[in-house]
């Protein structure tokens, strides 16, 4: 029995070490590689070059902006819907749950193909204008982030007694705007923050949809372009991007105090 236990522990450690090596070695390799921009010496030259590139900041700002708009628009679309379905239309939950899973069945590349076909021609002509293209990008990202957004909000709603809160507020004379903004939203804070950072992690480096709709204006396509031309800079970008993802996930942990754990990624 004792021997068995020790063997089991050994087995666990074996896989754990293998897994951590898998995690860390690529990061180490990338980091070391990114330091070799200057011949025969280690330096942060590649990082300096990246940070000096105005396109880095321009594309970064663009993607950040799109990400923030996506979060805002996504929450405005989903919070009232999820709330109302929990409160009044529980029978629709199966449907919305299924719908929010659709991005798993329809890959990003298929989605963007369809979006271009529908919205670039009559009667929409969205891709003809700057605003139209960006609006389409945001809409596509909402679809992409739907599984996390919807699930996070719905789980958040499940944790509070929506009906009791609503009825209590109503009996005290509150109208719908007050109920939503001052009762429901504050209770959903943690869920919304998780959803927001997950969305941001998905959107910031997103490549597939961005490359077909806006091209190298966005951060993902910019990184890809750098990768084609500059070897060391691409490694430093990979490290920067990893640190960013780490920061987003760290914020979720921070705000939810370990309650929420990250959800799976969107498009690769």
């Amino acid at each position, binding site marked *: 029995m004792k021997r068995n236990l020790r063997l089991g522990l050994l087995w666990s450690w074996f*896989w754990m070490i293998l897994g951590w090596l898998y995690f860390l070695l690529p990061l180490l390799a990338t980091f070391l590689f990114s330091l070799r921009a200057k011949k025969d010496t280690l330096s942060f030259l590649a990082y300096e070059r990246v940070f000096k590139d105005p396109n880095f900041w321009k594309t970064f700002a663009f993607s950040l902006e799109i990400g923030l708009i996506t979060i805002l628009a996504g929450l405005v679309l989903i919070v009232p819907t999820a709330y109302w379905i929990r409160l009044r239309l529980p029978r629709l939950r199966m449907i919305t749950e299924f719908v929010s899973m659709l991005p798993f069945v329809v890959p990003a590349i298929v989605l963007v193909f369809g979006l271009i076909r529908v919205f670039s021609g009559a009667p929409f002509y969205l891709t003809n204008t700057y605003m139209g293209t960006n609006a389409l990008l945001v809409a596509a990202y909402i679809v992409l982030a739907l599984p996390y957004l919807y699930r996070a909000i719905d789980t958040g709603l499940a944790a509070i007694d929506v009906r009791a809160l609503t009825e209590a507020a109503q009996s005290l004379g509150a109208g719908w705007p007050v109920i939503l903004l001052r009762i429901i939203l504050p209770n959903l804070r943690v869920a919304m923050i998780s959803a927001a950072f997950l969305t941001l992690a998905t959107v910031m480096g997103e490549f597939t949809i961005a490359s077909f709709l806006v091209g190298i204006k966005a951060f993902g396509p910019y990184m890809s372009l750098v990768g084609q031309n500059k070897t060391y800079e691409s490694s430093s970008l990979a490290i920067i991007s990893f640190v960013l993802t780490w920061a987003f996930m760290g914020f979720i942990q921070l705000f939810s105090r370990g309650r929420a754990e990250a959800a799976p990624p969107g498009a690769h």
Partner: protein
Amino acid sequence: MRRLNNLFPFTKQGAHSARPVSPIPWRDALWVLPFFFFIFLLVFLPSASLLSGSFQDKRGNFTLQNYLDLFKPSILSAYWISIRISLASALGGGLLGFMMAYGITVGGLPRRLRTALLTFSGVASNFAGVPLAFAFMATLGRTGLITVLIQTLFGINLYERGFSIYSFWGLTFTYIYFQFPLMILIITPALDGLRREWREAAQILGASSWEYWRRVALPVLTPSILGAMILLFGNAFGAYATALSLTGGVINLVTTLIGAQIKGDVLQNLGLGYALAMGMVVVMAIMISIYYLLRRYSERWLKI
């Protein structure tokens, strides 16, 4: 963590407070209309448009030619290698992820390791696309860290032995990087659900460790494992950014073929592109159907 488990609505949830109301009052339905209208515009309309486009030739007449074209050897092989990479990375990542999750749940590894691993998994499963491809070029590329390490330690040149980061195995190893953290995140709650009493009961009845796993733990876990596998498969099957950065035109995956059709690179044929896209949806639908069948089969004994 529950959120993840619920990502696929397969796990049964507690009873909702559903009141038996007959037809949905239209005033209530009005509130959720924007959401469904959005889904209609952004998901159904594009899908329907691709479907109709896949049955049209360049002049807009009805044709089945696009679907017949899917059976060209070059396209069939793209589907085949996409499916193989997705399966291999789902199985490999699934196994590694399961074993690591096992270690931090029932395997008896220190508690602090669990927190660290779950946090890291959240990050790594979101670290994908272009930067991931860069990272693996620096690791397993021709002058990558591991490649050079193996060369100096064992005198084996991986690239002379036929390995390449731009190959089936190169892509599979890269995909596993975002697959096994995802597996850890999905399967940990399921492993947490294994009761200690079950193991003790099995042991008292004389079961070996192997028998306990074979006849108690694995059957209980099967639905969760299957669900996770589907997610991992879809995750790899739809991957485009990583694939594009790593295949470099050496191998064609379905996603890179579709990308080429959208950009109109070589011999553009939009109808074929639409059919390719529909093919991907069909493959995913088949996988999910297989999942449901297997799950029904594996859960048969649960209904007592």
